[in-house]
């Protein structure tokens, strides 16, 4: 039995009263924007395939009206978009890129507007950095793992992997990538940032509050989970 039916009904009523109407001119305006954009340089060849797939989906939706198909796992986990089934090789795990020294973790944390965590079990990080756009904070340990953090409210990484395992950190959903996989940075609107693709090794992704954390390195799942559960807010 859902709780508080009256309150929920009134909230829906409030939402429905919003003075918003779909004007047929909207579609024309969108198609005009798309037309203008098409005069720009060529788009990827995959585009056409994707449109064909969209058409297929549309047809399927029309054929079976109440289709609320499951949102695939890739869709969104914190700030990370995961796409399974089309990753590259699951070869030897890659070494995470080194972090350029220069900032202390505290200085780095002052440059971002999300809550930052550290992993006291690993000791003090050897280096800390913040991406140029201020959206990703990274901590690195000597010869060891790398911890990337970002606000869950924005896109940051997309991952393509052959498989991903759902695990739990402190009882909350987390994702484990046991094999090497591809990772690419996303801008705030979810578009891929060119030339940021790289292979990534084993990775655990979890969230604490509104922060998405991504621990990458040559770790077993058990070790990664233990580290994740030991994460502490950076004072």
């Amino acid at each position, binding site marked *: 039995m859902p*709780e*508080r039916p009256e*309150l*929920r009904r*009134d*909230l*829906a*009523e*409030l*939402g429905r*009263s*919003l*003075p*918003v109407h*779909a*004007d*047929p001119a*909207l*579609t024309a*305006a*969108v*198609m005009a*924007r*798309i037309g203008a*954009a*098409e005069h720009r340089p060529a*788009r990827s060849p995959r*585009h*056409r395939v*994707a*449109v*064909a*797939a*969209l*058409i297929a*989906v*549309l047809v399927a*939706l029309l054929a079976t009206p109440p*289709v*609320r*198909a499951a*949102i*695939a796992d*890739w869709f*969104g*986990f*914190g700030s990370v978009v995961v796409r399974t089934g089309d990753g590259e090789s699951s070869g030897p795990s890659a070494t995470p890129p080194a972090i350029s020294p220069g900032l202390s973790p505290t200085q780095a944390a002052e440059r971002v507007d999300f809550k930052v965590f550290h992993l006291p079990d690993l000791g003090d990080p050897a280096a800390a950095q913040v991406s140029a756009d201020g959206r990703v904070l990274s901590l690195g340990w000597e010869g060891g793992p790398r911890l990337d953090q970002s606000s*869950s*409210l*924005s*896109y940051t990484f*997309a991952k393509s992997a052959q498989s991903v395992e759902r695990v739990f950190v402190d009882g*909350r*959903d987390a994702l484990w990538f046991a094999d090497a996989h591809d990772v690419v940075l996303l801008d*705030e*609107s*979810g*578009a891929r940032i060119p030339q940021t693709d790289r292979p990534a090794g084993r990775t655990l992704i979890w*969230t604490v509050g*509104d922060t998405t954390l991504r621990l990458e390195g040559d770790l077993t799942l058990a070790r990664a989970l233990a580290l994740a559960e030991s994460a502490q807010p950076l004072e």
Partner: protein
Amino acid sequence: MRSGERDAYAGLVDRHALVALRTAALLGAGADTEDVVQEAFAKAYARLDTYREGSPFRPWLLRIVTNEARNLHRGAGRRRERERLTWARTERLLVEAEPLDSALSAERRAALVSALRELDVRDREVVTCRYLLELDERETAAVLGWPRGTVKSRLSRALRRLETILAATQEGTHA
């Protein structure tokens, strides 16, 4: 691009325009709602290669709409300030709406709007998606980029808080 593909996309735009507009309006686009939605549809089209075949279009689109709406406030200083601005725009729309034939009394309406203002921003967002926009739990999770479990627990907590705030307001009125 073949014209048939464009037509198919125009069909998708028609079909999802209303929910996209409502989402943008309630998540802070205010008077820029129409512009935000046009831009979101154009971006979605340019980004069809990140759309996963076979998964529903609507939550994918709404996440783009949400990001577009949030981007409006990017220049507005720190997070707290952005959140305040975002809700102020939404509130203005809701207050101006005041329909004559609503099932809600003007008093209840005003109480709900001010109770929503008191909520923590995450609580407000999840209530907005799930109840004001009437998205289902999976869609809410997709739009906010949260795990489903978080949506569930946040929602139940947010509803409890809303009840508490509403009860306190009512007591204040009758005191």
